[in-house]
């Protein structure tokens, strides 16, 4: 439903005749639970958090079991410092003293219930989000628009985390400098793929993350998985070794907020 041509089909169909949606029941197999890692190391003040959970069957309610009592370490390979993370709330592991430094390489090590997962990610150099404003797009919806200056070097990738009233939305906005390297980018955040929309009175925060190419690929394929319009849907391409779902991202953050009016 989310990509442009599907919208057109629906637009045509809904005009000429009503297309028809209904909830159906499908017997889906339940796979063995798989580990899910949501790992973020940023250049913001700590603590940094790594979240461990598991998959559940489709029929289950949206309660995802936390993975507790795991050994989680993050190593700044550039500086040669290792931090052993402490579990706070069940499944949430926080750094003790580590702060992310742009240009440094980070290694994740997770040992949970006898399984080992590792990952490596280099934090890109920071780019500042110069401004955030609200734009009524031609598609008729209200969206955030961002301004930033892409650095002269090629190979910059961005992920824009969208918070509506301080809650992370399901839109996944990503950009790369493939087409517009080194330019001032003033652009509406579109093609997020999520259901979340902005309304008057909402408080919008955009956290621009500079990510590496593997994380760009992760978010790109996460978008595809969510869109469900590929002939062969698949899981996102993870940068985690060992067979876990999810990601390990070392990134810089630059945020701005605005009130939708």
């Amino acid at each position, binding site marked *: 439903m989310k990509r442009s041509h599907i919208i057109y089909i629906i637009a045509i169909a809904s005009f000429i005749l009503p297309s028809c949606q209904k909830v159906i029941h499908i017997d*889906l197999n339940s796979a063995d639970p798989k580990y899910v890692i949501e790992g973020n190391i940023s250049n913001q003040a700590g603590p940094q958090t790594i979240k461990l959970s598991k998959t559940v069957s489709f029929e289950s*309610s949206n309660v995802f079991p936390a993975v507790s009592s795991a050994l989680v370490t993050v190593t700044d390979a550039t500086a040669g410092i290792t931090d052993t993370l402490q579990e706070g709330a069940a499944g949430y592991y926080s750094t003790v003293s580590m702060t992310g430094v742009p240009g440094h390489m980070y290694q994740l090590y997770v040992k949970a219930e006898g399984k080992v997962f590792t990952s490596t990610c280099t934090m890109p150099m920071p780019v500042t989000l110069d401004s955030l404003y609200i734009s009524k797009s031609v598609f008729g919806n209200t969206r955030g628009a961002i301004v930033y200056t892409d650095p002269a070097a090629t190979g910059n990738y961005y992920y824009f985390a969208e918070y509506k009233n301080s809650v992370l939305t399901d839109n996944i906005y990503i950009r790369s400098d493939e087409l*517009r390297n080194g330019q001032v980018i003033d652009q509406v955040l579109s093609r997020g793929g999520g259901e979340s929309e902005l309304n008057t009175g909402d408080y919008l925060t955009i956290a621009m993350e500079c990510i590496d190419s593997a994380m760009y690929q992760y978010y790109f394929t996460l978008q595809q998985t969510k869109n469900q319009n590929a002939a062969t*849907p698949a899981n996102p391409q993870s940068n985690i070794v060992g067979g876990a779902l999810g990601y390990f991202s070392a990134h810089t953050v630059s945020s701005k907020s605005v009130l939708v009016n």
Partner: protein
Amino acid sequence: MFTLVFIFSSIIASAQKFTVSGTIKDKKSGEALIGATLVVVNDPTIGVVTNEYGYYSLTLPKGDYKLLFRYVSYNTQEIPVTLDKNTKLDIIAEPEDRQLKEVVVSSKVSNVRNAQMGMTKLNVQEMKALPVLFGERDVMKIVQLLPGVESAGDGNSGFYVRGGAIDQNLILLDEAIVYNPSHLLGFFSTFNSDALKDVTLYKGTAPAQFGGRLSSVMDVKMNDGNDKEYHVSGGIGLISSKLAVEGPIVKDKGSFLISGRRTYADIFLGLSPDTNINRSRLYFYDLNTKFNYKLTDKDRLFLSGYFGKDQLGLGSVFGINWGNATGTLRWNHLISPKLFSNTSLIFSDYNYNINVNNSGFSAKIHSEIRDWNLKEELDYFSNPKNTIRVGFSSIYHTITPGTITGANITTVGKPDNHTWENGIYISNAWKPNSRWNIDYGIRLSIFTVFGGSEMYELDAKGAIKDTLKYGKSDVVKNYINPEPRFSASYTLNENSSLKAAYTRNTQSLHLISNSTSSNPTDKWVATNNIIKPEIADLGSLGYFRNFKNNMYELSVEGYYKYSQNQIDYKDGANVLNNDAIEPKLLFGQGRAYGLEFSAHKTQGKFTGWISYTLSKTETQINGINNNQWYNARQDRTHNLSVVAVYEVNKKWTLSSSFVYYTGDAVSFPSGKYNINNQTVFYYTERNGYRMPSYNRLDIGATRQLAHRKHFTSEISFSVYNAYGQQNPYIITFQDDPNDASKTQALQTALFRFVPSVSYNFKF
């Protein structure tokens, strides 16, 4: 001595043979008749079939003969001929009275006698009675009602033949390849049925003159145009209108045909109060033209062209247009009464353009595939037992993979890709005796990959290890594949026969698409150093039986197909962007087998057919589903079509069709998890689930309106999906909007109770 002289003279007499040859044409329109039969009355095992240009040639011992002409929906004729010299005999065929014509879609050739199996000729004029979506008569949707052919989806004009993918169908319009035979995301085909003369579908068993696709050939030929008088015909429907004009350039020597069609859904869109819809652009148009001219008794020129375009757009922000253009110049030359030559120069082009214009950012994306093709073919009507066909086809392909340009942006693109596809072939239609009909031949395919575009070397994991440098004229690789083609029938008795066929086909252009619907931006990619030509071997066996003087035709065909070098994507591959495609692909094998049953009633007030296919289609690719065989998306166990047409009286004809098939094999999630505060579904295997089965009934009625001297018209009504079955077009998974703690499966159905009315006229 006397005996010796007698024997000698009889040898001389038997050696004295003459050729009767000519063209068979429709009396009213002058259209040449393809595949018409002519047999000797006293010995019906001696005969000939007209070629693609209506030409026949029959060489017989000196004597007096009566030839019997037979062709569906034409009056049978007996033509006396005295053969004491080579004789030119053009036959004028008289169409049956319109009101008496009660045949629907039928094979124009007796299916018992013909050597070809897995072949159907559609009678374009006679499929008009069938109910259709939006009133658009569409040959590609009629084809889907045949055994062994499956629809690619609800309302979709794409089709799968014997488990083959959509890109494995060779779709030809007057010999030119049509790369994207669909309009509006697949809901309509590029073929305007008013301009068509003949549609032949070969289900993987095509003779040697066809090559380049694994699964089928759909050979579409345009009308030549009436060379006797001017005619205008047209139609007005809910979605589109069309108009065709034809007539002589010089009477009996040359004619022209121009036929156009345009949709007007966009006019309705403008009336919508919804700004999302009323600012949209959405239309397509087609233009078919053809000219032919008889230069001399031995030479005839044909020039035909097709041009079609789709436009989709939203204000000035986003636009996409795509279209095919083809052109064919042909020269028929009669070297001798027994040797017919055709030379064709063919141009074919498909391109798409995307324009994006969004807050200070504007970009254009252009992609194209362009062919120049030179073909030469000789038909040698050696004797009544052998007709030999020799020829070659040489296609130069240029693919522009998609360049992105625009103000303030870095131009992204890859150099054009050049390849050269050659085929040389020879085949013989052999009738050794009255029981056997054997077509055998071989095609040698030579595919040459030129440098100039980027070629890669991949490591064991499939990542790019090295970029290889080749000059533009360097030959990177030649692929040479001999393709044997064999098809035979053995007549058991007057009414039944057994047939067997074996064919090998190769395919060197591949459509890379990861979309559930037909998408104009699907990429054609040529074979190169990494992507190998696909190869398929198909064996089939069949039993054919007719009853009651061919009123009922029954057939059972079984097939087994094994394919090599099949292509699929790695999990999560993005095939839309401009990165090298090779690291995203995986290669493997395929197998498909099935049984096709068909029962036709071809005559009477009540006509129609039932076709049922039981089949299996599987793929095995290292890197997918633990290297095990898995169901291909188009693996449909059961596929049933029932078509019925009833002629109530001279004015009213009623029709209906019913379709049932097993749902596609698809990938559904086997779990879910949470990442970045949202539910994401977890997939474990490819094509491990099934869509619900599909079923649909369409009904239609056609009324002949007042018949004035030169003016005929009719009005057709139809309802597509008459009982409103909610056939899922797509099933998606999401959080329950009413209960955030739950997830749900949501199906979207598109077409239910779609009524349509169309009015067609001719004068």
